[in-house]
Every structure is written in structure tokens, then in C-alpha cells.
């Protein structure tokens, strides 16, 4: 009996080959086991249980056609083949679409039904699939998905490789890297599920399930790979659907379902692999020799039974002698000046991925949308008011770069916020909005805020002055922040609406100023810094000692002002769900503060840093629920202020720019220089912007999709690349006008003067 085993890479993220060999050796002491590899740089080839080696050239240079022929000869001659590599299994499936009696790997039909993330084949199993989104959608939608998942997301390639992408800039960087490595744009984002990792390994021959075991990871490497685990039987409620799945897919070979068990015991399927897992010998140690069962089914030769040694296994690191006929290859020369020289995939698996795409572009396609559903669109739709506002501009006379005030958009946003506040207010509790001036101090926006019944939220006396100039009365001003006394001498003597203290020192200063008659406010309160969230603002709550200080401070607040609490956390930063958890957490802190200080809270100011779509799409349901929660937990509250600064400002301006020059490089890569720069759009790393081109001839607006063009700013700064991966419409040339929408928030207020002459 001759058994070929591949996937012998035995590094920190090992393949299963060595474990398969060890298990086979126990079941079939006399078998000839041949190790198959595509590099002599793979350490597992030196494992001494291998009787023979069949080393090929790396996948990138291998002649696949003749190699496929030689594999066929090996199988026809009675050799058995167990693949220990996903991509090799896929390639074998392309060579043997209907399988081969001696090929112990799944047929093409089976492989196609386990492509991530849907794993259609697993639909009968008691598992759920974490929510996901194809990266073929527009950047605008991808950003929304990340926010909705609190930025607890993985960006995944179609075969393997997954990276946490906790920010937009991390996401775009990983997207570029993964697309390049795996030669595909078809990646997907998937929500992270927090829980304990476990796997089910199976062994099957021609649609018959031969055995399956369950393994819980009990120790993991830094990459999350198994280091130790416990093995047990698969429970019947999982085993029966698994048996049906194996039958439906006519599965042959090993397989692994990787799952996470969450706190409420729900299993989430992360992915399914068309091969045995690297911990395969751990199961053999526990008395389940699945590779031997596979060989037994294929040959009818009984495997030697091996008794279970332990239900738990762990790994150790071993040095082994290198085989004389396959000495270690020399290390590649380090790139001059660069650090490190290791090559991640010695056998060239990434090259195999590129070649498989050419053999059959559909074979490795990730099934990302149910059949019949509309194809994802990489171009984000432009809201109607955007189109109207841009259309109203006289671009002919416009000096660029130029911020465009999106008048009808801004008016609609403020009006709807005002209407929402009215709708949510009751006789007992008034809901108001505050316009935070720092988000964009443009007087047109401040005036709109005034006209729509907003209060003005200021973080400096300079901002207070601006608000008063536009027409706000002092009692419509809310003063906040750590620098509220700057610039000196401008503190209004009239009664303001509310003042929130950012620290105990600030609070003492406010108390003294009120006593001295130097300032006055209807509400005086504190900003709290909730634990577990990194923030430099507010009075901390992170220990009983700091909490006791805060309670003492609250007791010192003047009793002729009403007491308020301010809470602020950027929802666009922490994510929507986490924001709501924080909100509820904050209410609990408030309740404790009331109980311990004896002061009741009459005003609650909830700052948001809301992403416009989240704030506006949320509609009333959640805000109404929040108001209800407030009423239930803090019955003395009479006013809730919400601060949708960014949600108002960001859509209210766009940035117009002109193309200065277009350079075409090889492979469709284009670099276009524009007259804007990151000085005008400093948030471009952190959020996507919807972009359009105005056609020079027709004046029509054309959306800018995703492609291989880089838009370089005019500055002499290496990182002045204001957009990458865009596709300029056909015919774009120097002098054409590009418009970046969604630039009216911090893009506008944090723009700077570098490079303006």
C-alpha cells in the first residue's frame, strides 16, 4: 500500500500533512508513505516517518498539465492520495472533477458548495453564519457595515487569510494586500463572533461518513491556531445533519468545520476546509484515527486499532535532522536596506491561486450573494439633494479647490432634526438638539441651527462669541469641554443654558465663578468618562476612589442651578451597537450618581459623533427607545439634548477640484494629479467620500467607481494621496471637475493652509 500525503508545512501555522502521516503510520505500520511537497523549504519533509519523498517545483513554475498527468498515473497504479492543502485539493478537483477511487479528496461539486462564507453545504447543521458583506459593494456601504458591526470585523480572502480591520485605514490597507496576494478583488467582510473556538473534523468516502470528532481549542497561538485541545464525540444533533451533508456533497476525504461557540451556546460556522485539520493527530491520540478510517474505506484493508491515550492533546516543538538528499535551501538575499527575508509560502501557494483563477475563474468564487439577488454595486448612490445642490453651482467661474455649500441638503437635514426633536418631546421631557460649532463653524450652518430651534454647543468662549454673533441668545448656549475658559475675559455674564465641567478642577473653578457672580447657567453639570473606552475627556469613573471624588464634587455644585450630565462618545468611532451599550451603561452611572450624591439629574446631554447615515437612518425608533429608557431610569430628567454635529455638517459641504494631469502606467494603473489635497480633505484616511465627476461636455454627473487609479493631491507630501482604488469615468482629462461629497464635517473644520502659497 502506497499513500501520498501533501501539505507538510510544519511552521507556526501548520498544514495537516505531518499529523496525517503520524496517524496513518499507526493504522498501517507497513504502508509506504510518500510525502508530496512543492518546495524543499517545507520543514515537514524531514519528518522521519516518511518512507519516500516526491518533491515538485513550486506551484508558480510547475507545469500543471503534465503534473496532473503524473498524479493520474500514480492513482491509476494504486497509489492513494490525501491532500493536506486547500488549494491543492481545489486543483485536484479541477483535474478529477468526478473524483478518482484512489483520490481521497472532495470532488469539485463538493468544494463549490463549501466556499466561504455561506457554506451552502452546511445549511442543515445547527450553526449560524456570522453576517458578512462582499467587498464588491461600494466603499460607502462597506463603511456602514463596519460601523454596524462596531468595527469588530474580519476582512477575508476566498481561501484563507483573514485580518481584523478595526479602522477604515486598516481596512483599505488589508484590502489592497489581500487582493494582490490572492489575485482577486472578491473578498468579504465578516462580523467577528466572540466566543470559544471549536471544530468538527470528518472523514468520508464517496458520500459515506466514516467518522467525526469534535475538538475544543484549549490553547491557541498568537495567530489563533490550535496549540492544544480536547477531543470528544460529535453530539447526535450535529452528527445526523453532518451525515446528510456528506451524502449530499458525495464527499470524499477529510474536512473540517471551524466554529465559534458564543456565550449563549450558539455555534457560528466560520468556515469549512476541504481537508483534515492540522490537529488531526490530536484526534488519533484520543482514539479517533480518521485518516486510517479513510484508507480503510478506500482499500478494504483493516487498519490497526490504536487505543485512546488521552482525551486531550497538546503540541511541542521538536528539532529533527535534515535529510541529506534534501539539504536546506539557502536563504534568499535580503533586499538591500530591508528587514527580514523569509518567504511566507515556500511552496508558492499564492501563485497556485493565481493559476487556478485562469484555469476556472468560477472555481474559487466566493458565493457571496444568494442566487437571483441583485449584483453588488461598487458605486455608491448619490442622494437627490446632493445632485440638486451640485447642479446649482456655477463651476465655470469657480476657482478650485473650493468647498461647495450644499444648501438644500443642509436645510433638509436641519429641518428633519428639528422635526424629530419635536416628535420625541413630551409634556414631561423635552428633546432638543445642540449644534456643535467645532464640527463646522460656517455661519450658514450655525444660522440654520438657530432657525431650526437648535441650541449652540461651544467648547471655547470664541465659539460662544460666534454663536452670539449669529444671533443665539446666551440662554441658548451650552458650554462644554476642557478649554471652556479660553480666550480669557469673554465668559458671558448672562445666564447660559448649560455648562458642563470636564474635570474636578474645572468643576471647582465653575463653582467659584458662579459664587463670585462671574457666570451663571440654568444647568450646571459634569461630563463623565465611562470606563473601558479610551477618552481624554470628562471625570473618570475607573476606580471606586475616582468615583467617590466625583460624588463629592457633585455635592459641591450650586443648588440654585439644575444638575445635568454630559456624555459623549463618537458613534462613528466605537460603532453603533457599542454606542447604545455605552448609553445604557451611562444611565446606570447616572442612577448611581443620583443615589449617592442626593442630587437629581434634570438634563442629559448625549453627544454622539454620529455618522450621518446612522443618525438619520436610525429614525425615531432607537432615539425614542433611548428617551423611554431615560424616563424609566432617571425620572427627574426634563430635557434631553442630542448633539448630531457631524450628522448635520458632513453632508452639508462638498469639495470641488480639478484634474491637473493624468499619467497612465502599466497594468491599467493611472495616477491623476488634482488641485485639491489632504489639506482640504484631511479625513480621507478615516472615512470614504462619495465622489462624482462632472462631464466636461454634457455637464452630467458621473459617479466614480472603484479601480486602479490614484488621485494625488497637489502637495509635496508623500502621503498626499486623496483617493486610491478609484475608477475615473471614460474620457476624464486634465481640467475636468471632480467633486468629493461628504466633506462638510471635520474635513472642512480641520483643513489647513499648507501649500496655498
Amino acid at each position: 500500500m502506497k499513500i501520498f500525503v501533501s501539505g507538510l508545512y510544519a511552521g507556526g501555522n501548520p498544514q495537516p500533512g505531518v499529523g496525517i502521516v503520524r496517524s496513518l503510520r499507526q493504522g498501517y505500520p507497513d504502508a509506504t508513505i510518500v510525502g508530496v511537497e512543492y518546495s524543499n523549504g517545507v520543514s515537514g519533509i524531514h519528518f522521519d516517518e516518511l518512507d519516500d519523498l516526491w518533491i515538485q517545483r513550486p506551484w508558480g513554475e510547475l507545469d500543471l498539465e503534465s503534473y496532473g498527468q503524473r498524479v493520474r498515473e500514480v492513482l491509476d497504479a494504486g497509489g492513494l492520495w490525501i491532500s493536506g492543502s486547500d488549494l491543492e485539493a481545489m486543483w485536484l478537483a479541477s483535474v478529477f472533477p468526478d473524483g478518482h477511487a484512489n483520490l481521497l479528496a472532495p470532488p469539485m461539486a463538493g468544494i463549490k458548495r463549501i466556499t466561504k462564507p455561506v457554506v451552502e453545504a452546511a445549511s442543515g447543521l445547527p450553526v449560524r453564519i456570522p453576517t458578512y458583506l462582499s467587498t464588491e459593494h461600494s466603499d460607502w456601504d462597506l463603511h456602514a457595515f463596519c460601523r454596524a458591526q462596531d468595527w469588530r470585523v474580519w476582512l477575508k480572502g476566498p481561501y484563507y487569510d483573514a485580518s481584523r480591520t478595526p479602522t477604515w485605514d486598516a481596512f483599505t490597507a488589508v484590502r489592497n494586500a489581500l487582493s494582490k496576494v490572492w489575485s482577486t478583488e472578491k473578498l468579504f467582510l465578516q462580523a467577528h463572533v466572540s466566543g470559544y473556538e471549536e471544530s468538527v473534523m470528518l472523514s468520508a468516502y464517496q458520500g459515506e461518513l466514516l467518522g467525526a470528532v469534535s475538538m475544543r481549542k484549549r490553547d491557541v497561538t498568537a495567530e489563533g491556531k490550535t496549540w492544544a485541545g480536547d477531543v470528544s464525540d460529535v453530539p447526535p444533533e450535529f452528527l445526523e445533519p453532518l451525515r446528510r451533508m456528506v451524502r449530499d456533497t458525495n464527499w470524499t476525504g477529510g474536512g473540517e468545520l471551524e466554529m465559534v461557540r458564543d456565550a449563549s451556546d450558539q455555534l457560528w460556522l466560520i468556515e469549512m476546509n476541504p481537508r483534515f485539520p492540522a490537529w488531526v493527530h490530536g484526534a488519533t491520540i484520543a482514539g479517533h484515527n480518521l485518516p486510517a478510517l479513510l484508507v480503510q474505506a478506500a482499500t478494504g484493508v483493516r487498519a490497526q486499532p490504536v487505543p485512546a491515550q488521552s482525551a486531550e492533546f497538546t503540541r511541542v516543538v521538536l528539532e529533527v535532522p535534515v535529510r541529506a538528499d534534501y539539504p536546506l535551501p539557502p536563504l534568499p538575499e535580503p533586499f538591500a536596506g530591508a528587514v527580514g527575508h523569509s518567504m511566507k509560502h515556500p511552496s508558492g501557494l499564492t501563485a497556485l491561486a493565481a493559476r487556478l483563477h485562469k484555469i476556472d475563474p468560477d472555481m474559487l468564487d466566493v458565493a457571496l450573494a444568494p442566487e437571483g439577488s441583485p449584483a453588488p454595486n461598487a458605486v455608491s448612490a448619490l442622494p437627490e439633494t446632493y445632485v440638486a445642490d451640485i447642479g446649482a453651482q456655477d463651476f465655470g467661474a469657480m476657482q478650485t479647490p473650493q468647498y461647495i455649500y450644499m444648501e438644500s441638503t443642509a436645510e433638509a437635514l436641519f429641518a428633519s432634526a428639528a422635526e424629530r426633536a419635536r416628535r420625541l418631546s413630551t409634556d414631561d421631557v423635552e428633546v432638543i438638539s445642540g449644534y456643535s460649532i467645532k464640527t463646522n463653524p460656517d455661519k450658514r450652518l450655525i444660522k440654520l441651527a438657530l432657525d431650526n430651534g437648535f441650541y449652540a454647543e461651544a467648547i471655547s468662549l470664541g465659539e460662544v462669541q460666534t454663536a452670539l454673533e449669529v444671533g443665539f441668545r446666551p440662554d441658548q448656549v451650552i458650554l462644554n469641554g476642557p478649554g471652556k475658559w479660553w480666550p480669557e475675559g469673554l465668559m458671558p455674564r448672562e445666564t447660559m443654558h448649560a455648562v458642563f465641567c470636564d474635570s474636578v478642577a474645572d468643576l471647582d473653578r465653575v463653582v467659584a465663578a458662579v459664587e463670585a457672580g462671574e457666570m451663571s447657567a440654568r444647568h450646571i453639570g459634569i461630563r463623565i468618562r465611562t470606563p473601558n473606552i479610551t477618552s481624554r475627556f470628562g471625570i473618570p469613573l475607573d476606580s471606586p476612589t475616582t468615583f467617590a471624588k466625583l460624588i463629592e464634587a457633585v455635592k459641591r455644585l450650586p443648588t440654585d442651578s439644575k444638575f445635568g450630565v454630559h456624555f459623549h462618545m463618537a458613534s462613528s468611532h466605537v460603532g453603533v451597537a457599542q454606542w447604545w451599550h455605552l448609553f445604557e451603561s451611562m444611565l446606570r452611572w447616572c442612577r448611581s450618581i443620583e443615589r449617592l450624591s442626593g442630587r437629581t439629574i434634570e438634563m442629559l446631554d448625549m453627544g454622539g459623533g454620529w455618522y450621518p447615515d446612522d443618525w438619520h437612518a436610525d429614525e425615531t425608533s432607537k432615539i425614542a427607545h433611548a428617551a423611554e429608557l431615560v424616563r424609566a431610569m432617571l425620572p427627574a430628567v426634563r430635557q434631553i439634548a442630542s448633539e448630531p454635529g457631524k450628522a448635520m455638517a458632513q453632508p452639508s459641504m462638498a469639495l470641488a477640484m480639478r484634474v491637473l494631469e493624468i499619467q497612465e502606467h502599466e497594468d491599467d494603473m493611472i495616477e491623476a494629479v488634482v488641485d485639491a489635497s489632504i489639506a482640504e480633505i484631511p479625513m480621507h484616511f478615516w472615512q470614504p467620500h462619495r465622489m462624482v465627476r462632472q462631464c466636461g461636455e454634457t455637464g452630467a454627473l458621473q459617479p466614480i467607481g472603484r479601480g486602479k487609479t490614484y488621485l494625488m493631491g497637489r502637495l509635496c507630501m508623500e502621503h498626499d494621496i486623496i483617493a486610491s482604488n478609484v475608477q475615473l469615468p471614460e474620457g476624464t482629462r486634465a481640467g475636468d471637475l471632480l467633486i468629493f461629497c461628504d466633506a462638510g464635517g471635520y474635513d472642512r473644520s480641520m483643513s489647513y493652509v499648507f501649500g496655498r502659497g
Partner: protein
Amino acid sequence: MYLVEDKAKRADVRTSEQLAGEGFMLATPIASPGGKWEHFPNSHISHHGKACCDIAHEWLIAYDFAQLNGGDILSGPRWMREHSAWGPSAWPIHWCEAVDAKIVDCGVHAAIAQEAFVARGLRAFRAQFIQRYSADAAASWRESWGKGDVSDHWIDGDAIYHEGNAVVVGDDHVKLWDGSAGWWINPRGEAGYGSLAAVRIDARVDSFATGLLWGNRRIPLNLWVEI
């Protein structure tokens, strides 16, 4: 790890000195699942009856909720182990001291976790464990508890007495939380170093007359059960 200075509240419980003395007089552990800890009460944190302990208690509940961070309410409060390491603590202890201490024993961890679980709206009970370790481990612990001038009556041969929580999940399933370790005890646990030898779930309630299900085992309440 245990106790009970608050006689006013729990007049039926004996003092630590009595209990410790009783333990030390035994030449060999009692041949029952609870061993020398057969009648040991769960540790009980005292209240000064003043604002200091009120603040500490309010802080604890609000802080635990904040630490959930949007996660499932059944997540173990692992932050407690980060907040205070496991080690010798002197009894009696009050809420303001317990919540502020940098090093506390499992009795404090379990008492605090209990407040947190209940405040989250979960059904949770105090649980007592007897665990197997080794003579070397016991010697090392005796040494450090001795240096801390704290009684080591929780060690007996290579067995130790330890406290945690039993959290009800679903109808009558329970998970056992070891707050000092920051993990759920594995119901599939084998015998051997660190394993659970016996458990007692302290549930003065009328429900769960048939006990609670931990893994495949049904654990009758208020009794030491050998594992």
C-alpha cells in the same frame, strides 16, 4: 478566603478562628465530599453601613455593566481578575476595602461576581469548590499565605477549598465561574492537577428541587457533591 465577621447578619455562623481551629485539629480529612470543609460557609463581604461601602457597591455594579462592552450578559466578569489579582486577603473585609484592594482571595472575587451577576438580571448562586493540586503547590501557597499573615486553613494536603459562582443558563443548566482564575470550569474536566474534586452550590431557593445540570451531571443543591 472565607468569611463572616458580620455576626449580626448571620448569627448562626461561627467565627473564622473556630472554623480554622476545627480544621487544624483533624488528623485526616473527613471522609465526606466536603472533607474538612463540610460545614464551611461562603465568604461574606461586610458593609460599614456608611457611604464608603455604598459608593463601592454602586461603582462595582455600574463598572461591571460598562465592562460588558456590548457583549453577552452571560460573559464571565473577567475584568475582576485584572482589577484585583488573586492572593491572600485578611478577613473580615468590607465593600469599600474589597473593591479597592489590589490583591484579594477567591472569597472576595466570588462575592463580588455574585453581586455583578445578579445585578445583570441573571440567576446566580455562590458555589464552593474542592480542587486537587499537588504537595508542591500547597507548600508554595502556605508559604505566601504565611507571609501575608493570613490563615491557610483552605489548604489540606493536596486539596484546596475555593469559591466561585454558579450561573444559571437556560432552564436548569449551570456554568461554574472561577473568578480568581477568570474562567468557566470545564465540566468535561478530567481528574488531576487543578481539577474539581467536589462542589457545593449554595442556593437557598425552592426552585430547582432536582438540582442543577452541570455538563452531564446533576448537582443537588446545598450539598457537597463529589465530581
